[in-house]
Structures are given as C-alpha cells and as structure tokens.
C-alpha cells in the first residue's frame, strides 16, 4: 500500500512525515519491535511450534535477542492488559492459515521500518500461510481507530533460509543509550509525547 492510500488521521500523518524525515527509529536503540516490524529485520525469525504446550514461540534474531509467545489454547485476551511491545497474541488455524489476533501494544516502537504510526488501540490480525516450502504469505490487518479512519490491510512474503539456524545477535553489544538515560543529563525531560 502506498502512503498516499493509507486511511490515516491528520495527526498520524504529521507524525509519519516527521518520522520519514528524522528516522530515529526505536529499533535502532535496541527497543523490541512488535507488529509486522518483528518480521522486517535482516536476519529473520524462527518459529518454535510447541503443540503439546499449545504455544507457538517466534524467536527473533534482530533486535534485543528476544521472542514472542502466541497462545494456541483458545484463551481470550486478558481484560486488565498492560501495554507491551509485542502485545498479547492468541492464534488459531483457519485451514492452512495461522490467524493471530493481537491487542495490548504500547506505543514505544514502530510497526514497520518507515514509521507508520499506531496507538494503544491497535488491534492487529495476522494471517500466515506457507504457500510452498520456501514461502510464507503474510497478510496483516491494522485496525487502530486511534490513528486511522478505517482498518487497512497490507502484507509481504517471507522466504525460507535453508541450512541456517538461530545465532547470537545482541543489539546491546554496541549500546550507547545510557548517554540519554535519566540522570545522565543535568535537566531531565521526558515530556515529549512523540516517540522519536
């Protein structure tokens, strides 16, 4: 989808323009990045399917060396959810398609690499279909009445990487964020509403 076609609210459009200009993505400061952004790192992801535990765990290679849990037991989302980077994900199979429903995101990351905005109201539906051995078709619906005027859908394909496996990539290996921590500045200012 082209940016000009996004059903985006004016404030979110202004934020997107700012981000396109400034490109200070939280991911570059080792923040975990949920939503479609989880799948948009150079090294990819690996899934650990644990049917007896009724969980699928997606292990990230990019970012802070972390993972996302998808509950496959039919549970509802908790009512008192506190916002997190990956939100709360439940999944079910629809034929050959894994359908993942996620709510409870925080606003501290970008959902893609260009900075498409979202709010805590984001309700994300992902559909993953392995259409052949080497391909997963990924379709994502962004339903976020805080930032958009209606739900919209986009997607891309994942490509299988043969003869490889998870390795240790730790973003914090080269981490200069402490320079910006509370206490490192003479004047503490966390009042900006914009996640840079």
């Amino acid at each position: 989808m082209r940016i000009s076609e996004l059903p985006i609210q004016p404030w979110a459009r202004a934020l997107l323009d700012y981000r396109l200009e400034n490109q200070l993505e939280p991911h570059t400061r080792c923040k975990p990045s949920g939503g479609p952004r989880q799948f948009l790192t150079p090294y990819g992801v690996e899934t650990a399917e644990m049917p007896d535990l009724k969980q699928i765990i997606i292990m990230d290679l990019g970012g802070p060396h972390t993972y996302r849990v998808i509950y496959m037991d039919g549970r509802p989302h908790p009512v008192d959810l506190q916002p997190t980077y990956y939100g709360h994900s439940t999944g079910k199979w629809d034929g050959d398609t894994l359908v993942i429903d996620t709510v409870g995101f925080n606003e501290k990351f970008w959902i893609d690499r260009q900075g498409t905005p979202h709010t805590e109201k984001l309700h994300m539906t992902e559909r993953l279909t392995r259409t052949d051995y080497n391909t997963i078709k990924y379709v994502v619906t962004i339903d976020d009445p805080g930032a958009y005027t209606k739900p919209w859908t986009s997607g891309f394909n994942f490509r299988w990487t043969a003869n490889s496996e998870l390795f240790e990539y730790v973003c914090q290996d080269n981490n200069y964020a402490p320079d910006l921590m509370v206490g490192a500045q003479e004047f503490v200012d966390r009042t900006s509403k914009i996640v840079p």
Partner: protein
Amino acid sequence: MRHPVLGFVVMIAAASLLILPLSAHHEITAKFDPAKTTRLQGIVTYVDWANPHVHIFMNVGAGASMANWAVELESVIDLQKAKYTRDTVKPGDSLTVEGIAARDGSRQVWGNTVTLAGKRIFNVPEETVNRAPGGPTPRWPDGKPRLGPAPTTTGLAATGYWARPSMTILAENGTNIRANKNGLLANIADAPKVAPFQPWAKDLFELRQRNRLADDPQYLYCLPPGGPRQFQQPYGIQFVEDNERQRIFVLIGGGNRNYRIIYLDGRSHVGQVGGDDDNPLYYGRAVAKWNGQTLEVDTRGFNEDFWFTNGGLPHTEQLKLLEKFTRTDFDTLRYDVTIDDPGAYTRPWSTGWTLRWVGGADLPVHFCQDNRP
C-alpha cells in the same frame, strides 16, 4: 528547616534511619546515598511507567526555586503485582515522597515511601518463598524429567517458570557468604573467601564491590546475563523443550527478555550453522546430554563484556561451565555449576542453589531497555 534553594526539600543526614528497598533491579546504593534522607512534596508532571524502574517526575518548590525531580521506584512488574497501575498517579497530583537522594547531587531520589492524599502508595511487600517439597517430578513419555511445564488436562496452554533462587551470589560451596539480592556482600572482608581468585581477579571483584556494583553492564548497558547469572534473576527463567529439534530454549526473565539455546543433538562447540562462526558470545555455545535424572550442559566460548554472576565475579574468554539441572520434585530445580576458568581462578570450583516453580504463568514481560530513551 527550609533550604533557600531547594524549597521544600529537606535533607537530613540520618545514617541511623536507613530504609533500603527490597527488590530493586540494580544496586540502589550505587546510585543513591542511604545517608541522604530526603523528603519532597511536589506536583506530578509526568509518569514514566517503564521497566526496570518506574520514574515519577514532579515539580518541587515554587516560583524561581521550583525544580523538577525524578522519583525512582520499583519495576512495572513489581508495582503491578502489588496492584498499582500507570494511572495510580497522574500529572497534577500532589505527592509526598520520602527517600534517599542521588550520590551525584542530581535531582533524583529513590522513593522509599510515596503518599498520595494521605494514603501510602507504591509499596511492594516482600514475597515469602515456600520451599516445602512439591509433587512428583513431571516426565516425558520416555521417562526423562521435564524441566519446563507439562501439558495440562484443562485444555489451557502449559505455562510455568523457575524463580526465587535460594542464592543470589556465586560463592564456592562450603563458604558462608552473606550478600543481598544483587550480590553485594554484607561484609567486604568476605571477598577473598568467595572463590579461589587469582590476585587480579580478587582485586577486580573487590573494586566492583566497593563501587557498590555501579559499573554493572547488565544495568548500565542492558547487556545479557550470560552464565550462572541468568539463574539469579529476580524474574526467573523458563525452559522450552523443543524435542523435535533437539534443543532447549532458556527464556530469561531479567535483562532484555533474551533466550539462550542448549543443543542436545550431539554437536561440538563450534559456531552455529551459517551463523557467527567462532565469535566469543554472551551466552557461549551450550551442548548438553542427560545423565540419569540430570541434564548436564557444557558451555564455552564466552566473551568478557558482561558479568557472569551477580556481584561481579570476573571471568575470561577461557571460561568453561559445567551446569547440572535436576528437577528434584515438581516445584524444585537444583542448579549446580562448576566454573573452570584458568584465566581468573586458581582451580575449578563449584557452587549451586535451588529455584522454585511458579505455575500457571509465563515469565513477566521485562525489557531492561524499556526506560532507556
């Protein structure tokens, strides 16, 4: 007593009235001075509800002397467990904070007590740990113990993790060393007894202890808790046994919610396929086999960029670990480790502790990086 510059700030050096936090995720006395007892009244301007430590910002004083202070509290996880939320205080609220001020003189205070409208908030009670024996060890169909959760009969996902380590510093078996949850020794004179240090390693350990662990890279830079330290984290660890792929994931509750991989497919300590070749790593290269009821994990190939224990015992790239995991009953995991590092110690040495099962939940979500900009 009103300081002309600090407005309502009252600082009393009262070393006899030390109140220290219970479960902070970095050594509080590294940043804050217990002797700088401080009382602040102010109006909240911003709430930074983030791990590892929540910060409440508030304006203290009035007019030209008004200043914005940061009040540091426990983690989001601990505060939520105690039923507080990011909406417990809001900008505009009037708070009274009693705590201890930063050593560096910046306008930061560790909040021992926070009072809103006459009611104390943000107090986190200390957990009591039940170490009574649990039910039988759960097993796989082939009889091997399960280190992680067992499938439920309720249809719900199988969850559960290990936490509440019975020891929070790495001290050789047979020593009787007292240390706090971060591995800070109660008595610095105990330092040489902790392990068979080489002289340089003892000196570095003592230096880190005398600095109250202030240069801990897990806190400063959110670097990973490699080695035994991952089993000393306040939020625990979780095992995911991927039998089909002959590997076990150790999901780690401290730091940045990392995972470590233990391979059981008979490989040797070489770089992963197509991966990072022979780079020294934070988690090293771990291969394992079952020996009766015990999983024996042999790990090498560590880098030197992190602390492999609470309290800051040094290690070198020569470090080899032999870790043994035994689930002695449903609720108890015995962890034993032998440290073989001829670069830092005069001989191999061993220690161990137990962890306690926390059923019916996955690891709390903790990212060290969360309250970084």
